[in-house]
């Protein structure tokens, strides 16, 4: 497929990197020469220098033959004009990153008028991701499938958990009451798809999938905190904080926001009447103590600086905040943060990039089995995706024990008539089922890719 990406920043780069590895023809339009040079050296894509909203530049990039046009510059207006121009030149599907608060309420009108097929808002997506994390405060990642009824949760194994230091085969019976499945294990930075003989060690990051209520029960059983978050402490009053606070306040959670810029504080007070807004430096430890950071269920650092966010979250955790989540945008920090005390990290840029990649993958396959969702887990080492089984799927009705799967691919869950089934040897696939597949090291674009034949 021919894909044009305008803007080679973090989002554009991540999208280009992932899609180029999936053998698409990628053209990146970017104005900055230094960015072009980096992309040219690192990725197998074509780079065009220039303003992505200009007709001449877009023509040079061959936009008239583009299947998917993605505008991800830092400026909403450029993205919108780029999409409009691309569409009128003949691009088939346009995606724009639109994040400004002023546009969000009229987004439907805007996208319709500008013929944008998909508008992506990184900040509101991040807010949604944080609010999912807050439901399982001990989890580092939470992704949802099947209209939110199935969850994939990543968390660290402790040495007092009943499932550590022995093989999963032996643990199996204790999981039968609330059917959940371990679907990926990250041990010392190496991710693998577990089987019966896999042993989970203390400190490993494990990923578990199951119905939402079963996951909750499992967490209760291992004594992890499933208590509802009652109050939240946020530093940095940017867009993510605003979107999130709106949701939290609606759900009855107390919110306190520390923001440095006084004018921002004023407008936050106008928008969020029931939140406590404090004007001050969120990285000032005296101020955090003064505002009783240790008493909060959840601490969120959402300022614009990754370093501040990490340090502040570490401090809050040290002071006794039950759960700390930090916003980290730079991809090379993610691995470092993994080894720290911070419970979870969110990265708006990665969330956006993966969101767009999911859309592209879904479009690729619109004729075969449809991909409903795709998440990258374990720092992008593995992928979890949901498909609908169609008539074109192979081996329908054959017991799974008679089918050879590709190594590194796990059929994690079958959802039949709304009931999740953890597949066993005698189960089989039927048309109309939803299935969730976890894969490491393979690009699964269609259900039939999971079979080893």
């Amino acid at each position, binding site marked *: 497929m*021919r894909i044009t990406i305008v803007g080679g920043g973090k989002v554009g780069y991540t999208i280009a990197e992932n899609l*180029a590895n999936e*053998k698409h*023809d*990628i053209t990146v339009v970017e104005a900055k*020469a230094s960015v072009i040079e980096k992309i*040219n*050296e690192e990725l197998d894509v074509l780079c065009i220098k220039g303003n992505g909203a200009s007709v001449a530049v877009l023509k040079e990039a061959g936009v008239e033959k583009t299947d998917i046009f993605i505008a991800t510059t830092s400026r909403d207006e450029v993205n919108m004009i780029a999409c409009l121009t691309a569409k009128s030149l003949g691009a088939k599907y346009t995606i724009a990153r639109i994040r400004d608060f002023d546009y969000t309420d009229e987004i439907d009108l805007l996208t319709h008028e500008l013929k944008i097929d998909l508008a992506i808002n990184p900040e509101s997506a991040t807010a949604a991701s944080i609010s999912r994390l807050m439901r399982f405060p001990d989890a580092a990642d939470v992704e949802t499938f099947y209209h939110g009824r199935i969850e994939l949760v990543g968390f660290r194994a402790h040495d007092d958990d009943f499932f550590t230091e022995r093989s999963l085969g032996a643990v199996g019976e204790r999981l039968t009451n609330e059917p959940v499945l371990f679907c990926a294990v990250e041990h010392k930075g190496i991710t693998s798809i577990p089987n019966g003989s896999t042993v989970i060690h203390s400190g490993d990051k494990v990923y578990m999938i199951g119905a939402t209520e079963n996951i909750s029960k499992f967490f209760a059983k291992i004594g992890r905190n499933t208590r509802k978050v009652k109050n939240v402490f946020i530093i940095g009053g940017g867009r993510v904080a605003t979107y999130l606070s709106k949701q939290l306040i609606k759900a009855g959670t107390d919110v306190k926001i520390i923001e440095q810029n006084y004018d921002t504080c004023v407008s936050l007070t106008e928008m969020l009447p029931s939140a406590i807004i404090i004007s001050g430096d969120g990285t000032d430890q005296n101020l955090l103590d003064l505002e009783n950071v240790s008493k909060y269920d959840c601490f969120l650092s959402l300022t614009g600086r990754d370093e501040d966010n990490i340090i502040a979250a570490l401090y809050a955790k040290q002071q006794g905040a039950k759960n700390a989540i930090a916003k980290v945008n730079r991809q090379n920090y993610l691995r470092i943060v993994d080894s720290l005390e911070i419970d979870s990290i969110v990265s708006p840029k990665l969330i956006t990039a993966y969101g767009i990649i999911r859309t592209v993958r879904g479009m690729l396959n619109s004729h075969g089995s449809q991909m409903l969702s795709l998440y990258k887990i374990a720092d992008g080492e593995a992928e979890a995706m949901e498909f609908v089984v169609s008539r074109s799927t192979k081996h329908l009705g054959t017991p799974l024990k008679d089918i050879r799967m590709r190594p590194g691919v796990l059929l994690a869950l079958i959802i039949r008539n709304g009931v999740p089934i953890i597949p066993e040897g005698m189960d089989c696939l039927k048309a109309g089922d939803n299935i969730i597949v976890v894969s490491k090291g393979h690009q699964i674009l269609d259900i039939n890719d999971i079979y080893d034949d």
Partner: protein
Amino acid sequence: MSFQIAGKTAGSIMILEAACMSTGLLMSIIYGEDLRPFLYSIGILLLLGLPLYKIGKRSKDKYSVKGGFITVGLTWLVLSAFGALPFLFDGHFGNYINCFFEAVSGFTTTGSTVLSDIEPLSKGMLWWRSFTHFIGGMGVLVLVNAILPTAKDKSHHLLKAEIPGPTSDKLVPKLSDTSKILYGMYIALTLIMVLCLLLSGIGLYDALNISVATAGTGGFAVKNLSIAGYYNIAAEYIISIFMFLFSINFALYFLMLTGKVKQALKSEELHFFLGLVFAAILVITIKITNIYGLADAFRYALFTVASVVSTTGFSNIDYNNWPALCEVVIIILMLCGACAGSTGGGVKSARLVILFKTLRQEVAQYIHPRAVNVVRYDGKVLQEKTVNSVLRFFFIYTVIVFSALLLVSLDGFDFRTNFSAVMTCINNVGPGFGAVGPAENFSALSGLSKIVLSFSMLIGRLEIYPIIILFTPSAWRKD
């Protein structure tokens, strides 16, 4: 740069070379000649290449920028060192230094030879000589990239180092597709040339040899008198035209094929190149009309200019005794060389265009000291980095020319011979003047000179850095 990945590179190049060499074997089988030179060479290549490839295959290293340059340099050294084997086993060429010179001259598309009499060579051996031009012309790593799926390797560096010119642009998003398109156009043009030559009355074997040698802008011929040996005026015109065609940037052909003819014709490099060519033909024709008469003078001037500027090195006349002005024009053409992104050698017209523009900008700066100036090329502002790298390139090129000249002068030939030998080698042309003129050869030079000139050819073909970096100790350190 780990030795594992170097091993993998060397191994795969040796296997590929064995495959290329088998075409020579095939020729020898067809003409019922002695098969041993090729059988031995292919055997040695496979015996060494396969284990090396196996060892290196386990390496998971990726090509870095530095690693890319080392890989390119290494590839060409391996290619030349083993490409010399058939010549060594054949026996006509003498010692290994001669064979190495001949092989380097082939792969770098120079076309300088150490043989005074090439006609007794077997058909297989002559074909291998010509075919090395074809392999070296578009580049062996471009070929590797076109046929092997290397999606995850950051191999853009490799191609950058092998495709000549100040900047390298991909034609289409994917590198492997770019390589395939380049080779596709290369092969198609070559086949058209074979057809044209057949129509002009040249035999199939000779037409194939001349075509692959022209395609790579090489210059090894199958007759002692080069193209003059056919006494075929139509063929001379055909070859002249194709020499020009192969010295034009292939990206322009791609633009034309995709319907962007206007954009292709706007290329500043093309204008400069054509201007230079017309001026040179005009000057030489005028100067030699009183010797040959107008019709022949034009034919000789056209062919010689095409041959030199495309850095092919065929000849249809011995221009050793032309007036001095013609010699200077020919030396200038050698230096200028073909266009960037073609199969020709030389400094490349694109660089000269940039150099002249920089000069103009510099003068303008003296007139208006506070003026803000940029260098534009094809309507786009050039980055200062690109301009600076062109300036540096030209300086290093000059340094290398004079260093090589110093070493070659040890042999005691006259200045005209020495200078033209160095210029013809570093620009991958072929013949020079004096003792290395079109009717002469390089056999009289000493072993040292042959080695110096061999490396000059490699430096010229790979545009300096890949060879220089091979001899830089810090490039081989692990960090």
